């Protein structure tokens, strides 16, 4: 191609060689996976995203309080990092719920 720099030429020819070698091998592996994922209904997209947030919050509550709050400068809810996790994550969950419901 006209105007290509030396670096571009090397990168383009390496990229072409990789594509020619591996595309025929990888397509039969990934295309069935892609077809399967493309069938999943939209409600599950939102549930997966919210599920990641909820699972993370549940996981934090499963950790020992002594481990989560070690070196805490005080007692009470405002020093409990499990509560911080909920407070930090809830706005994110609300956003995904809002857009999820809107797109249904």
């Amino acid at each position, binding site marked *: 191609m006209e105007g290509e720099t030396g670096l571009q030429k090397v990168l383009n020819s390496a990229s072409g060689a990789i594509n020619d070698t591996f595309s025929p091998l990888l397509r039969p592996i990934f295309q069935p996976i892609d077809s399967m994922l493309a069938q999943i209904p939209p409600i599950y997209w939102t549930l997966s995203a919210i599920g990641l947030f909820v699972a993370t919050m549940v996981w934090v509550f499963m950790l020992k309080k002594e481990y989560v709050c070690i070196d805490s400068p005080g007692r009470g809810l405002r020093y409990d990092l499990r509560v911080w996790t909920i407070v930090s994550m809830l706005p994110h969950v609300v956003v995904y719920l809002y857009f999820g419901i809107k*797109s249904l």
Partner: protein
Amino acid sequence: MEGSDAGLAGIDIVIVVIYMIGVFALGTYFARYVKNAGDFFLAGRALPFWAIGMSVVVSDIGATDFIATAGAGYTYGVSAANFDWIGSMPAMVFAAFIFIPYYWRSGVYTIPEFLGRRYNAAVQIIHASIWGIVLVTMLAVMLWLTAQMLETILQRDFAFQIANYEINGYVWLIVVVTGIYTVSGGLSAVVLTDVVQLIVMFVGGFALLVLSIWEVGGWGGLQEKVLAMGPEYQNHFTMLLPHDSDTPYPWTGIVFGLGIVMATGYMAGNQAIVQRTLGARSEWDAKGGMLFAGFLKVFIPLFVIVPGLAAIVLVPGLENGDQAVPTMIRELLPPGLRGLMFVALFAALMSSVDSSLNSASTIWTTDLYGRLMFFARGGEISERHALIVGRIFTSVFIILAGFCAPLLEGQETMYNFIQTVLSMFQGPVFAILLLGIMWRRTTQWGGLAGLVLGVACTTILNNTENVFPSDDPFLFVAWWSFIFSLIVTVVVSLLTPKDPDEKVRGLIFGQVIQDGEVQRVLRERTQ
């Protein structure tokens, strides 16, 4: 709309000057507290959670992100916000409760240092070299992209010519101010100036948000007007897009590639992010800082994506989405507010430059120079020696970046190449970090094979066409290279001899968290 002239008014220049003097004075003030390498690289382990949280956010969000994320909002709609929501918060929680306490207790300065202890010198040097080079190159790239942004706002050409002194002047002002306070004050100066920079960035971002929403008639008006622009805008208010849609952000890539792999790899494996938490005054502050950062990141898309969407209505027909915010600043903001937004972009840039600079210097001093000296002299370098070398590296890198920035003009390939190199490592490094921490049986050869073959896998996936539905499948590549590296590391570890107990003592999560004797030794090391 205001339809203002290009350039800054007198009031805008006054705001810029006050900001620069304030940040310079604050940054250099901390030089008096820097006595050794621990003070310089880890702020003497005295940082409170709120400073860490604010610093993490501004280190992550640069001026170029402001522009590029708003550009993605302009082109793809709200789905670009996933990077600051699902692409941050869950990862920050995992980083806060798995990786950060672990790094913090093991008393390391850098992630390559941990990889060197857990695996071997080859893994440490490969990882340190890549990050060392990428961070330094990114400094020049950040300055160059900022110059391009200034070019759009001020409508000037960027080149080192006398006629274009204005943009060059701003770029070198940033180089000099950021360079001096980072060299003199180290991480304390970087983090405390980041706090001011975050406040400035939020004030500027909020001003742009309010004006954008006002101009388009509120959130409802924005949706109505954007959706009425044509069929290509029908997905602009859809957060999760179909798996087979031709965008870089399909829901599967967002949840798995971004939410699980790229985000966690970034938050737990990026030296510029992790270094702030290593400087915490306590483990509670380190964890709390990450959670606070996650909370603050909720607001970022409001400041960048919403103006990007408003630009579709207010300045339609832009050739490139990245021109959305600079054009809005030029067209929409009156004098005074334009200066404030200008300063907000400077704040975003300087906070990313100082973080990359300090982290690059830490990696070069600890993992490359320190290793070289260890092999050459058979011993660790002293704290004083490390401090002097760290300051020399910091000075050299920022000056080099200032001179190299204009050379990147017309070299978009270099920028893309650096981004690609970085993305190639994220999945594999996260895999070996995770296994190294969580699984005792992981061996040094398993880690090395997982890293090298994982990068090979990324290279192949990045260069094969029609394998994934999107033309820009980086999220899928991150996920599959992570899975591949996990498998390779497990298989090679099981085929090679177990590492001795003395080598991995204090480096496995279970020991660090539960073994009383290991905890006592580690606590002594960090005090």
